[in-house]
């Protein structure tokens, strides 16, 4: 071909410049993030020192000490592990159900209507409101918690994934059909990757809903877990007025949220949808 000399260098410079720009941006974003967290910690410390009432507002350093203490000498680590264990079970079960549901909805008009209607009904219903009913049905225990967790994840995840499948560009569909792809191969190699930005956002929303639902459930019906979870840790220490430990428990909730958001979801996005130019960073 005659014009590759004219075209290629432009694109080559463009892509390397973008890579450079990106890494610089990521570095500075990290710097900004640390700066924001440090400022918040400083303000907190100042406010606590000024208030001088550890019972109402323990300082940042007191909270960190309580966190360290809780991890080493108390059951903070095992409570966190217990919460996470239940969370992962409920989350994975909901994802499995969601994928089955969405697959059926993509293939069949009646299932599609069922999905849309059920999502519209159940998505606005707070999962925690189902806990009393769940405990009536399944008793005090893990099953009840998993039931509400599934409820909190299934609908937003199914909705996001279904929307993602619906908005796969016609060109991608035609390309897949042009190769003679059908059934599971068509879904696996065309629909899922093309809908990945929506699927990932469904996973993120589902995770956030699951985490807050679980902590709330443990706070309200703390004993329902076989071992006390993180919510129960917070509730128990609040009853005994160990406010610094309450703060330590809350910090733990936040930390895990941050780790999953930045360590897991952002990392997955960086090597998939953002690398492919399907989502802006």
């Amino acid at each position: 071909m005659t014009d590759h000399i004219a075209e290629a260098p432009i694109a080559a410079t463009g892509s390397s410049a973008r890579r450079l720009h990106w890494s610089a941006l990521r570095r500075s974003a990290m710097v900004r993030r640390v700066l924001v967290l440090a400022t918040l910690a400083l303000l907190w410390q100042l406010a606590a020192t000024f208030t001088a009432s550890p019972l109402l507002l323990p300082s940042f350093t007191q909270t960190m000490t309580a966190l360290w203490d809780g991890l080493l000498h108390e059951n903070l680590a095992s409570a966190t592990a217990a919460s996470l264990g239940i969370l992962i079970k409920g989350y994975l079960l909901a994802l499995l159900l969601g994928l089955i549901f969405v697959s059926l909805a993509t293939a069949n008009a009646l299932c599609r209507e069922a999905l849309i209607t059920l999502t519209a009904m159940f998505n606005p219903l707070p999962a925690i409101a189902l806990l009393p009913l769940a405990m009536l049905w399944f008793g005090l225990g893990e099953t009840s918690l998993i039931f509400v967790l599934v409820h909190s994840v299934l609908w937003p995840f199914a909705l996001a994934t279904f929307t993602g499948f619906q908005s796969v560009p016609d060109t991608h569909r035609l390309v897949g059909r042009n190769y003679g792809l059908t059934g599971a191969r068509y879904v696996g190699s065309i629909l899922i990757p093309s809908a990945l930005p929506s699927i990932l956002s469904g996973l993120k929303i589902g995770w956030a809903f699951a985490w807050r639902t679980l902590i709330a459930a443990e706070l309200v019906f703390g004993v329902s877990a076989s071992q006390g979870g993180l919510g129960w840790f917070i509730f128990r220490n609040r009853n005994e007025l160990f406010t610094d430990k309450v703060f330590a428990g809350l910090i733990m909730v936040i930390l895990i949220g941050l780790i999953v958001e930045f360590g897991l979801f952002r990392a997955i996005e960086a090597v998939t949808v953002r690398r492919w130019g399907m989502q802006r960073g």
Partner: protein
Amino acid sequence: MSSVIEARRLSIDYDTEHGPVRAVDNVSFTVARSERLVLLGPSGCGKSTILKSIAGFIRPSSGDILVEGRAVTKPGPDRLVVFQEFDQLLPWKTVRDNVAFPLKVARGKSGAEARALAEAALAKVGLARVIKDYPHTLSGGMKQRAAIARALAASPEVLLMDEPFAALDALTRGTLQHDLLALAEELQFTLVFVTHSIDEAILIGTRLHLLSAHPGRTITTFDTSGIGAAQLGSPQFRALSEEIRHTLFGRRSGAAA
């Protein structure tokens, strides 16, 4: 002369709210091996619809299409399509994997074999340097080159192109037209090409099939096998261009450019 494609008394209806609307009415044509048939007409003449029915995406209401003597019933990799849209390259695959993918899923090649064929095809269209890049980093012209390489690499019975250069700027379009012609001379592939540009049709095609709009009906055909890039802008080329314009749009000279 053996024909690769035979379309017989093809009629295609679209379902709309107000009932079926005829898009293509009783169109017949054949395409011989190594021939480049251009379907040319104003918008609404059903040229893209005919191409989609050859690809197997749309079922004709009546009539049938034979490719290598077999009736078309569904899409398949023996009829690979180059679309107009830039997003026809799958964004989650590198340029090389985009070309290698149909070789693997539709031609049963091993991974290494498919990659080697893909690299060769991409080198042919001048994209050897970007094989490991993702499509979103490519210009529009490069994306269309990659899509052509993808279709060529799988060596289909026939290449179908649906206004592949329509979304490009004039300079890039000109270059890609010439490069496509050079590839056709070299590889002698069979091509069905849809366009609404008269000059592009004369340049690319060896035979033009002119269609009228609403519904799409055959007006006439032109043999343009003697006219190529060398004749571009010549009096002969301009005269033919003008004649086709008159045939498509009536006797008002220069009415619809």
